[in-house]
C-alpha cells in the first residue's frame, strides 16, 4: 500500500516537472511577446488566437507540412526496412564477421554531423540530389541507419536461438524466417525504433538547411526558421509553429504505442 502511494507521488511529481515547461510553451502560443516575457509562467492576459490563424493560414506552412510528412514517412519506412534487414543478418551471422560488420555500421553514430557534412554535400550535389525530396530521404536514411541498426540488432540478438533452429529444421529459409518469425517477434522494438526515427526525421534541420533551396521543397523545421530572427525572434509565433508541428508526432506516437500493447498480449509481464 505504501509503495503504491509512493509510486503515485513519484509519477505526480514527474508529471508536473514535464508539464510545467510544456504549458509555458503552450500558453505562450496564445500570448503577445511582451506578455510572454513579463509573465512567462502565467496564463495569457488576453488570449490571442491570431498566431494559429497565421501559422495554419500561410501557404508556406502547408507546403512545408506536406513535404515533411512525405519525407518523414519515406525516411522512416525505408530506414526501418534497411535496418531491420541488416540487424537480422548481423544477429544471425555467427562469430567475428557479424560483429565487425555491426561495429562498422554502428560506428557511424559517433561521427559529428559537421565533420562529414561538406563532402556529403559535394557528393549529393554532383549526383543532382540537392534540392530534391528524394535526396533528403536518402540523407535521412544514411544518417540514421547506424542508430536504427544499433537498436534493432540489440533486440534481435536476444531472440531465443531455438526459434531459429526450429525454423531451420522445418526447412524454413532465411528470408521467410526474417519475415514471419524475426519481424513479428521484434514488433515492440520495431515500434520503439520507429518512434525514434519519427522524431529525428520530423525535426531534422541541418540537412534541409544545407540541401534545399527551392521554397516548394522546404520542410517544417525550415519554415519555422522564419520566426527566428537575428535580434528579434517572434516567440509566440514560434511556439505556435512548434505546437502545430508537434501534433503529427503525438498522433504518430499514439499509433505506434499500440504495438507495445500488441507485444504485451503476445505474452510477457504482469507488472
Amino acid at each position, binding site marked *: 500500500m505504501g509503495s503504491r502511494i509512493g509510486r503515485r507521488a513519484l509519477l505526480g511529481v514527474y508529471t508536473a516537472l514535464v508539464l510545467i515547461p510544456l504549458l509555458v510553451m503552450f500558453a505562450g502560443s496564445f500570448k503577445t511577446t511582451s506578455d510572454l516575457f513579463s509573465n512567462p509562467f502565467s496564463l495569457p492576459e488576453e488570449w490571442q488566437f491570431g498566431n494559429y490563424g497565421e501559422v495554419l493560414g500561410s501557404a508556406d506552412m502547408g507546403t512545408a507540412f506536406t513535404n515533411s510528412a512525405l519525407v518523414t514517412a519515406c525516411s522512416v519506412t525505408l530506414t526501418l526496412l534497411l535496418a531491420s534487414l541488416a540487424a537480422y543478418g548481423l544477429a544471425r551471422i555467427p562469430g567475428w564477421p557479424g560483429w565487425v560488420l555491426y561495429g562498422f555500421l554502428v560506428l557511424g553514430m559517433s561521427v559529428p554531423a559537421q565533420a562529414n557534412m561538406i563532402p556529403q554535400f559535394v557528393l549529393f550535389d554532383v549526383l543532382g540530389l540537392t534540392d530534391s525530396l528524394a535526396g533528403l530521404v536518402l540523407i535521412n536514411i544514411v544518417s540514421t541507419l547506424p542508430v536504427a541498426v544499433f537498436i534493432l540488432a540489440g*533486440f534481435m540478438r536476444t531472440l531465443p536461438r531455438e526459434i531459429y533452429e526450429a525454423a531451420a529444421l522445418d526447412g524454413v529459409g532465411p528470408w521467410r524466417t526474417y519475415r514471419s518469425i524475426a519481424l513479428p517477434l521484434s514488433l515492440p522494438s520495431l515500434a520503439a525504433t520507429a518512434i525514434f526515427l519519427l522524431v529525428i526525421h520530423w525535426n531534422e534541420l541541418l540537412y534541409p538547411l544545407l540541401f534545399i533551396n527551392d521554397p516548394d521543397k522546404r520542410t517544417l523545421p525550415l519554415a519555422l526558421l522564419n520566426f527566428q530572427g537575428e535580434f528579434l525572434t517572434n516567440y509566440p509565433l514560434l511556439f505556435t509553429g512548434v505546437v502545430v508541428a508537434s501534433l503529427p508526432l503525438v498522433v504518430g506516437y499514439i499509433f505506434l504505442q499500440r504495438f507495445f500493447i500488441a507485444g504485451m498480449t503476445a505474452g510477457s509481464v504482469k507488472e
Partner: protein
Amino acid sequence: MSAPSTVRTGPAPTPARGTSAGRPRKHRGWRQRFGHPAFYLFPLPALVVYVIFFAVPTVQAFQYAVTDWDGYSAGYRSVGLDNFEQLARGDDLFVNAMTNSLKFMLVVVVFQTLFSLVLASMLLRNSRSSTLLRAVFFLPTILSSVSVAFVWKFIYDPNFGLANSALKSVGLDSLTSSFLGDEGKAIYFLAITQVWFHTGQMMVIFIAGLQQIPRELYEAAAIDGVGRWQRFRHVTWPMIAPATGIVIAYTTIQSFKAFDLVLGLGGNPPQGSLDILSTRIYTSFADSRFGYAAAESIVFMAVIALVTLIQRRTVKLTQSGA
C-alpha cells in the same frame, strides 16, 4: 563483404539444413563458423548505401585532419600530426570541453537511465492512466531545441526565473543560484535540461525491453516468494540487459552530441563553462579551421568508443553477477 567469395566454390545454398549429411565436410565447417551465406545478403543494401553516402565522405573529411585546410579555399598544406599534437599538448579550450563533456555525460547517463527505467517499469501496465502518462512523458522529446532552450532560460533566470522563485517560496533561499552563470555548476544545470528533454525517449526503449521478459520468469519468482527488490535484481535487471545496453550507449552518444540545446542556452559560441566537445568542434568549423576540427572529430570518436566500451564492461559485470 568479401567473405562470400569462399562460398562460390560450394554448391548453391539450399534452405534445408537438416540434409547436410551429403555435403562436403569443408563447406559444412565454413557454414558452422560463418553462418548461412544468405545471411550476408541481408545487411548488404544497408552497407552499400552507408558506404557510399556516409563512410566514404567521412573518410574524405578525416583526411583533412593532417592538413591546415580552412574549409573553403582551393589549397591547403599538409601539417602531419601537428593538429593532434596541439590537441594533446596545448589547447586549454579542448581540455575544458573534454572535461565538461565527461561531467555532462556522467550526470546525464546516470539520471536519464535511472529515470527512464523507473518510469518504464511503473508504466508497464496497459491501464488507461499508464498509456496517457507514457504519452505525456514522451512529449518533451518531440519539441525543437530552440523552444526548449527558450523555456529553460526563463526557468533558470536568476532574477525572475521559476527555479529561484520556487526555491524561495519553500524557504530554501540558500539554494538559489545563478544557474547557467555559476561557472562551476553550469554544466550540471545544462544536464538537468538534457535529462528533461530526452528521458521519455529512453523510456520507450525500456518499455520495449521489459516487454520481452517472459511472464513465466516472474511467476516462478512469485512461487519462490522473492521480494520486490530481489525480483528486480535477479529477473528484471539481467533480462533487460540489451535494453540497458542500448539506452546507456545511446544516451552517452546523445550527450556527447548535444548541440542545439547547448547553443540555445549557452550562446554561440557558448561560454566556456558550457562548452562541450561537439560545440567545440562546431566552433572550430565556424572559425574556418576545418583541418583542426577534423582532428578534433577523430579524437571525439575515439573518446566515445572508449567510454562506451568501459560502460559495456561495467554493465555486463553487474548483470552477470546475479
